[in-house]
């Protein structure tokens, strides 16, 4: 899952980015309005975390533009403005959620998960596929009722593949969804992760579609 964080304060931006990375999200951090717009034009982020008091272009203006151009991604406003009128203005401008600083990191990630769930049209918090059960909140994964230990990346990868189980996802797409701007990806990284996942979950769950990418398969 790749998120865009728009925050001008270096200390806060750094902390939010690190917290979210610990939660297996890939996070791009834009420090002002222009950078944010550029990022939004280049990648369909899973979720945008938007600070309002930005130098250059105001957060609400970015939001207006985003929605005017029919960009559907979930947007959470992160701000220190706690007045009810500010919240209303934020939500009515097209935000999906509104968190007031100082917020709890668990609440932030829970809200991101909730928005992603809604985006994917799921109702239950657990993701199930064949013998697999994923808990996005705890990063736990069970295969045939047995808990499997996965690294954060591996967990992210399987989550992305499980978003639309019948669809094929290319290696490039996977790279884009799993890695942020400043993270180096080696050419075979995805293959290595897939290899490890197959070892842990069994070889038949992830199928390679030659020349296209990978897909989840329930057929043994």
């Amino acid at each position, binding site marked *: 899952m790749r998120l865009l964080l728009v925050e001008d304060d270096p200390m806060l931006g750094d902390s939010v980015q*690190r917290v979210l990375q610990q939660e297996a999200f890939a996070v791009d951090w834009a420090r002002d309005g222009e950078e944010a717009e550029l990022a939004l034009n280049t990648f369909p982020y899973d979720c945008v975390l938007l600070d309002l008091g930005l130098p250059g272009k105001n957060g609400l203006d970015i939001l207006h533009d985003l929605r005017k151009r029919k960009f559907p991604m979930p947007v959470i406003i992160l701000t220190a403005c706690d007045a009810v009128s500010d919240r209303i203005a934020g939500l009515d401008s097209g935000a999906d959620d509104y968190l007031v600083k*100082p917020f*709890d990191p668990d609440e932030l990630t829970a809200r991101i998960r909730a928005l992603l769930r809604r985006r994917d049209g799921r109702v239950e918090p657990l993701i199930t596929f064949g013998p697999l059960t994923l808990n996005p909140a705890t990063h736990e994964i069970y295969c045939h009722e047995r808990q499997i230990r996965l690294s954060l990346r591996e967990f992210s990868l399987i989550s992305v593949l499980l978003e639309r189980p019948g669809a094929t996802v290319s290696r490039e797409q996977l790279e884009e969804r799993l890695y942020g701007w400043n993270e180096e990806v080696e050419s075979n990284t995805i293959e290595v992760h897939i290899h490890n996942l197959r070892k842990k979950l069994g070889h038949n769950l992830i199928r390679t579609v030659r020349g296209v990418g990978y897909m989840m398969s329930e057929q043994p």
Partner: protein
Amino acid sequence: MNSISQRLLALLLGALTVAALLAGISTYLKARVEVNELFDYQLLQMALSLRDQNSFEQRPTAASDYEKEDDVTIQVWDSAGTLIYVSLHDTPLPLASHAGLQTVIFQKAEWRVFLLADRGRRIQVSQPLKPRREMSFVFALHTILPLFIIFPALALTIWFAVRYTLKPLTKVADGVTRLSPASLEPLPEHNLPAEILPLVQRLNSLFDQLSRAFDIQKRFVADAAHELRTPLTAVKLQMRILERSVSDNERIEALERLSLGVDRAARLAGQLLALARVEPEAPPVPLEEVSLNRLVGEIIVEQARIAADKGIKLGTSSDVPVSVTGEPDALRAMISNLIDNALRYTLPGGTVAVAVRQNELAAVIEVADTGPGIPPDERERVFDRFYRMQGLDCAGCGLGLAIVKSAVKRHGGTIMLSEAAEGLGLRVVIEIPHPPFNA
């Protein structure tokens, strides 16, 4: 008695009573003089009329009427000194000591006596003074009685007049009662008497200043809370990162960042307090003679470590002793923030130079750095609270220059920003006038 209307009423009624009494007394005194003259003349006439009467066998006719009415007693002695006649009065008075009019005391009462000596005979006509006094008193009473009769009506009139006159004041008081710190509406100024208008105008201007100060304060508190939330959020997040750190390296790094976040919140709190102390609304502090050379020296020693760590040359040049009369803490905050700012924005290898000098009118403090400077169109806004220049990563809390400006203003001085040299760096020049602003 602490009510204006009661005071006025008491004063006016008191004065009226005194006036009435004075009128009564003066009437009484005047009447007495006139009554005396009249009665004395009467006694004289009576004596003279008796003088022409030879025989006193019969009652003297001329006296008969007066005798009854006014207690007049007539006595006649012959040349041998025998009392040959006493009028009906049963209390014969002693013979007066000399001829003419006189006042004698007889049987504990004052009498007016006229003694006429004529051919050996002595005729004495006497009258007690009491009826005269009574008569004068009646005259006086006639003068003041009407006054006392209209007294209640007068009191009532005064009461209403006072109430009516004080009505605008009561209205103002009611208006003030309805005010609260949250809603300091100006009081209406039309139709006010000249005595109250200045009071209301002064009140209104005070309310205006107050509500403006309240607004500034409210905005400041909101801004401060807003600003404090950022480092606090960062601290909260960094604690989570620390919890989830798996390696020692990660933990050490997380702890360092955590401590930076706490430092930032602490510094912000310190700066907020410093700003509160130099604000125009802050209470004045006793002024002291402050040596700027020494103050700058102390601050440079404090900050030398930071400068050395960043590889910045920090120095001062001050040949002449310069001192100002001012608030020591405000001056310290002013210079320390200037140097702190200069160090913050100057790149390693740069220079920060502090100079203190004197011109005819003012003490001058100058801080010049080799940092990025401030573009001319931002030179006004950098003094705003929480304003931070764009594109600079070494951000402070945005209060430094606001503190400097407030401190300068508090000393009646001026501050000017310019380029340090050929489009490079920032030069801040502060002038604090001699003699001090409020001397």
